[in-house]
């Protein structure tokens, strides 16, 4: 949980390329001015979920509402979308299961997270007010997204199976499944819009964490101060 001592290097200078690649396999370590936030497997896992989600989205939207009918063209028409969508859904469910297993321990909600998740806490967060020095590696919003995504994936999978094979289920279950599939999707996608915004435009320096894996010390101190202290062993801000 502190700087990795790599053979044949001095601190913050001359870190060998191979050594950096190795270090990036390990989360929560400092390399020079940067901190590894997401190791390779975390990033591959995240993008597996994201890509399968977008494949589902782009094949599902044209079936959902005629406004998005034009999207079907990219997959070869609406019939092709209808055939592909459930298979992309299976891939998304598998990726989501991987994400759940990978992250559920780190995403346990603490008392402070619950405070963060009150309406007042969320408003303060979006107004950049009241910085909480006790925010760890993931803040309450990220944890909420994780659990909502897990619940949403279960809802989408179960209702999706019914919609895929309607003849095997009674009328009431089929009707309920359309409603559940739509509701889960609407909530899921609205949260993803917020997730993408916060991860890119709203908080510069965040996107690289999920692409190349590292963040700057300043970024870590600002957004995740407790995690910063744990990783760097920096007592000044304690």
């Amino acid at each position: 949980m502190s700087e990795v001592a790599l053979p044949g290097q001095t601190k913050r200078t001359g870190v060998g390329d191979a050594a950096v690649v190795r270090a990036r396999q390990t989360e929560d370590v400092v390399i020079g001015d940067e901190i590894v936030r997401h190791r390779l497997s975390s990033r591959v896992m995240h993008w597996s979920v994201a890509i399968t989600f977008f494949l589902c989205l782009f094949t599902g939207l044209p079936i959902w509402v005629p406004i998005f009918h034009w999207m079907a063209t990219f997959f070869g028409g609406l019939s092709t979308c209808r055939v592909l969508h459930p298979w992309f859904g299976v891939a998304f469910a598998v990726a989501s299961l991987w994400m759940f297993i990978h992250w559920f321990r780190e995403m346990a909600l603490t008392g402070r997270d619950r405070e963060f998740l009150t309406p007042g806490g969320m408003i303060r967060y979006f107004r950049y007010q009241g910085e909480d020095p006790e925010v760890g590696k993931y803040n309450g919003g990220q944890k909420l997204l994780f659990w909502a995504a897990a619940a949403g994936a279960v809802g989408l999978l179960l209702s999706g199976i019914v919609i895929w094979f309607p003849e095997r289920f009674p009328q009431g279950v089929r009707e309920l499944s359309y409603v559940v599939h739509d509701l889960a999707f609407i909530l899921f996608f609205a949260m993803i819009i917020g997730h993408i915004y916060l991860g890119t435009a709203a908080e510069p320096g965040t996107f690289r964490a999920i692409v190349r894996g590292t963040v700057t010390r300043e970024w870590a101190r600002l957004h995740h101060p407790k995690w910063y202290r744990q990783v760097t062993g920096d007592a000044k801000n304690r």
Partner: protein
Amino acid sequence: MNSPGLQIRQSSAQMLGGGTGQRKMPVVSKYIDTSTCIGCKACEVACQEWNDLGNVRTVQVGSYQTVPTLNADLWNLIKFNEQTLPDGGFAWLMRKDQCMHCADPGCLKACPAPGAIVQYENGIVDVNPDACIGCKMCETGCPFDVPRYAARTDKMAKCTLCVDRVDVGLEPACVKACPTGCLHFGTKDDMKALADSRVEQLRANGFAQAAVYDPPGVGGTSVITVLSHGDHPEWYGLPKDPHVPTGVRFWKSVLRPVGVIAFAAAFFAMVGHYLTYGPKKPKSSDEKRGEGPV
């Protein structure tokens, strides 16, 4: 789909302007008198011949019925029920099961493919296989359990009320073939008058509960059925008060628009947030740039 677009009243999965019918025409209807049906199945054969459907192997179900239910190659089935009556007697009830051609069609409501299910100005509800994507959502939308998925074509199939014959002034094939005159075809007004007079006859002849089945829950149907036991449509395998399923109506009329609005709202909320508060940056870079969020 066999009829030109000028006659389309409404079409599935349209945003706006569903009603494009230029050519006005009277609503037509098929008349079925269950009390004079002898269960000969001539209509089943005529339907399969005219529509050139695949062969269907009959199934011994222990009654005067050829197969248990409709399927993609059998759009018209005479259902049979030996009903025990409250007075201890019994009745042999024949009923022609087929698409009812609802004025408010649940299949069309549920269909996500633009133009795959259309309703013509004359009330006939038809499938356009070219646009159908084989998703089976119409099966859930139909209150009469009529549309069937054909694995052979990956499309749904059902009775078209012989729209190709009707277009050229002929009656549907089943009506043409019926030997007892229990089937008739004409404008809905004429068929209702015929049905009313038949109901009067039945009532005068000991069937006090005789009635016309033209369910208002789906806006009436273009297939109206005279039932000797009109107080018990379920004896004939007909729902008592059919309507477009609540789940389907809620899903299509409430959830979809709400969802689209929610996306737009989420998107504009983010844009608004960025314009109001800007990006959240570390203090050091704020100092360097001499600006930044307050």
